[in-house]
Each structure stands twice: as structure tokens, then as C-alpha cells.
């Protein structure tokens, strides 16, 4: 415990509530009093109005809010899961089998320092503007932490336990299965949130630049049409959706960890 003065949880809630309320009130005041022009900022009220309007209205950007959210969700889910599904086994195998490590590592180290977003132009060449390109960028983004964490996890296996299993006549594959993978699990779980955060950023970048639907696209349209409220709505939706996905992954992670530790 640090020396900071402790606030009761109930009070803390009201204090947080108050701070957000003040933010919204100040924001509303700045806009309605005309301090900033409406080409720079729309009021919170107009954003809320737009939100309800966009639930059913496809104008001015071509899709309802639900369709945008769904498109983004689909892309992140596909890319993220693909990254885990390929990255984790790859990292595990690289950690244990020197040959696989030798084969894959050079390529991996070559790709690693390139920010995933830099792939966007190529992705457009290859897949056009649409779902496949987005998934590809997200996949590249999530792959790196998945591989690295699984790899490090294997390296952290207790050498004495491995030595002991060898004494019992265990094969390399048996040791991999019974010792390396369980040893790596905590590191792998640690990668879930990290990979998700990177994937989320990649999603938005891909949608801003190479997309015709999705929350990132909504923001781009808002910019092109000079509608700050559309941009703000897109940003807020990204925040809410991102929070919910993060929450779900966190729950899954906790569930897995408790299943492991019991």
C-alpha cells in the first residue's frame, strides 16, 4: 500500500462520475457558446443525436452504425484468432526445436521491426480494399507478440524438470508436450492482451486507409465530409467496442489461468 490517502470506493465512483460530467458540460459550453467553430467540434448533444440517427440511417457514409461495428468486429476477431492460432504453436516449436528456430527466426527477425501498418499499401495491392486486407494487417500485428511470448515461455521451462524427464526416457516430443507447453502457458496468457491491443490499433489504421466499411472508415468519412460529430461518434464507438473486447479477453484469460492454477 502506498502512502496515498485512501478514498472509499463509493466516493470514488461519484468523484469519477463528477469528473466526466464536468468534461461533458465544459465541452457543451465551449461549442454552444461559439468559442470554437462547428467545423472543429460538435457538441455532445449533437453527437448523441447522431448516434440514435445512425442506428437506422445509412447516410451519409453508406452503412448503419451496427454494420460498421459488425465489420470491425469481424475483422479483429478473424485477424486476432488467426494470429494466436498460428503464432502460438509457431513460437512453441521455435522455442524447443532448434531446426525450426533456425529456419523461421531469420525471417521473423526481418519482419519484426517493420510496423504492421507499413504493410497496408502492399495489402491493398494484394487484396484490394476490403476484409481480407484488414485481416492480414491485424494478423501481422498480433503474430509478433504471440510468437515471442510462446517462444520465451518455452525457454523458461525448468531445466531440472527437463533433465529429469530425460532420465525417465522421455522423447523430445514428450518433453515438449508434458513440460514445455505447460511451462509456457503463463507467458502465452500474458500475450493475449498485448496482442489484442496491437491488433486493435492495426484494425483502425487499416480501416482509415484501406476500407469501405467499419468504424475506422466511419471516421475517415467524417473527415472527408467535414463532420466532426461523425468522427467523434466513430472514436467513441471504437473506445466502447475496444473496452468490451478487452473485457471479454480478460475474463477468458482469468478463466484459463484459474483453470491452470486451481
Amino acid at each position: 500500500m502506498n502512502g496515498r490517502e485512501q478514498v472509499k470506493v463509493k466516493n470514488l465512483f461519484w468523484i469519477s462520475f463528477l469528473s466526466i460530467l464536468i468534461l461533458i458540460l465544459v465541452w457543451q459550453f465551449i461549442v454552444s457558446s461559439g468559442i470554437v467553430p462547428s467545423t472543429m467540434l460538435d457538441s455532445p448533444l449533437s453527437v448523441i443525436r447522431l448516434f440514435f440517427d445512425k442506428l437506422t440511417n445509412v447516410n451519409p457514409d453508406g452503412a448503419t452504425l451496427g454494420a460498421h461495428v459488425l465489420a470491425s468486429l469481424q475483422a479483429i476477431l478473424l485477424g486476432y484468432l488467426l494470429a494466436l492460432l498460428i503464432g502460438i504453436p509457431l513460437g512453441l516449436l521455435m522455442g524447443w526445436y532448434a531446426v525450426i528456430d533456425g529456419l523461421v527466426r531469420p525471417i521473423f527477425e526481418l519482419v519484426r521491426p517493420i510496423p504492421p501498418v507499413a504493410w497496408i499499401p502492399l495489402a491493398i495491392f494484394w487484396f484490394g480494399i476490403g476484409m481480407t486486407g484488414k485481416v492480414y494487417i491485424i494478423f501481422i500485428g498480433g503474430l509478433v507478440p504471440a510468437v515471442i511470448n510462446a517462444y520465451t515461455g518455452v525457454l523458461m521451462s525448468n531445466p531440472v524438470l527437463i533433465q529429469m524427464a530425460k532420465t525417465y526416457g522421455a522423447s523430445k516430443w514428450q518433453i515438449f508436450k508434458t513440460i514445455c507447453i505447460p511451462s509456457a502457458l503463463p507467458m502465452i496468457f500474458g500475450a493475449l492482451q498485448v496482442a489484442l491491443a496491437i491488433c486493435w490499433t492495426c484494425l483502425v489504421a487499416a480501416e482509415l486507409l484501406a476500407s469501405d466499411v467499419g468504424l475506422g472508415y466511419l471516421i475517415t468519412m467524417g473527415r472527408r465530409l467535414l463532420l466532426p460529430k461523425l468522427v467523434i461518434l466513430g472514436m467513441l464507438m471504437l473506445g466502447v467496442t475496444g473496452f468490451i473486447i478487452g473485457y471479454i479477453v480478460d475474463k477468458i484469460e482469468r478463466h484459463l489461468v484459474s483453470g491452470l492454477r486451481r
Partner: protein
Amino acid sequence: MEEANRDIKEAYKIECINVSKSYNYGEKTEVKVLDKVNIKAKENEFVVVLGPGQSGKTTLFRLIAGFERPTAGEVYVNDKKVASPNPKIGFVFQKYMLFPWKTVIGNIEMGPKLMGISKKKRREIANYYIKLVGLEGFENYYPNQLSGGMKQRVGIARSYANNADILLLDEPFGQLDAQTRMFMEKEIMRMWNQEKKTVCFVTNNVDEAVFLADRIICLEGKLPGRVNKIYNVDIPRPREFTDIPFIKLREEIKNNMELIL
């Protein structure tokens, strides 16, 4: 084993002959950890290696277990020169070394499983040794739910389950409080009487050594570890910490240790 006093036919389970071990640190510095150590253990003998901290005790065990090779000298186990880790040797480590994601029974079954013994059979084996080490009722506990003493019981059961005929116990009770330690010393005697094995036991505790050993091998206090003196302990078992011969031997060893430290 039943025939406790059978004829000794000079066959040793463990034989270390002039064993030396050095480690290199970088280019030039070489540290000698063991110097011409001779140790012999007959079948079903309880040999205690007594030495202060950092006298190369764990290193000696690693050589016997075949995890490493000596720099000079020879190690024989079952009359064969040690060249690789030997499944006939059960190692109970100074630091608890259990599979954290396996239950008590899972840990004990691990060896038989890796050796390809059928599920039914290895369950049987595990249950038998769980009983031997007194862990009934804790089969499905995970290591982090066990006390230190219980963890070492699992380690001992694991060695037995593996059908080891030599047990190397490296300061197994070093991390236990005095009371639990004394209790575990009685327990290891009970287990050993019930299921005889050749045991090598490392400790830095004189009482523990005198209580347990058929033979005590004292190492010198400074690196490199050298055998300083060997005591044959013929105090009848079960021993009491307050027996006159017990106290006499303990004092003798203690005085000697003070001289070499």
C-alpha cells in the same frame, strides 16, 4: 530388505573413486569444487554426506546421478561407469522440484507414464507410494497447496514410483522448521525400513546425520570439497537424540567440524 545382515561381497551400489570436479569461469579462472573424493555405498546402506554450505555436495550428487561428468576420477553406479543420467537413481532436490501444473498423484505418476507403463498399473504404483510417504487424501492437491514437508514427500514417492534403487536426497529437509524436520527424519527412517533402498543423503546438520546414517562422510569446509573423515554409526535403531552414544558421537563430530572449519 529382510536379510539385513547378509554377507558383504564388496559389491557397491555407488562408488566414487578419486572424483574431482572443476568449473571454468571464463578463460582463465578455474574453480575446483571437489578434490579426490572417495565414497562408497553398499546395497541398502544409508550414507550421509555431511558438509557445510558450498562444499560441493550438490555437485557430487549431480556427478553420481550422471547429469555431469567428473573432471578426474571415476563414478560407478551398479558397477557400471556413469556416462548419462540413470533412471535407476531417484533425485530429491534441495529446492522443491515438482511439476506445478500436476497434482500430487500426477507428479508421482509422471516417471512411470514417460516410461510407458499402462494407466492402470501406474495408478496402482502411485497409490502404493502415496501410502508409503503418508500422503493419502492429498492425491489431488497441487504443489502450491502443499507444505514444504509434503512437497518433499511427493519427491520421495516420485523416486520410489520410478523404481529407482538408489535415492539421492539433497538436503531434503533444509527448508523445513526444526519440528517438522525432526518429524520428517523419523518418517524417512520409517519409509526406508519399510522399503529398503540405497540412500545417499546430504545434510549440514550433525544431529540429522547421526540420527539417520549407517555411515557419515564428512566434507571439509572450504572449496574444494574433500573427504575429511568417515564415521561408521552402529548405534541401534530407532535412535533417540538423547541416547548416550548418540550424544557422544554428535559431540565428537561437532568438535572435529570446528577444527576443519
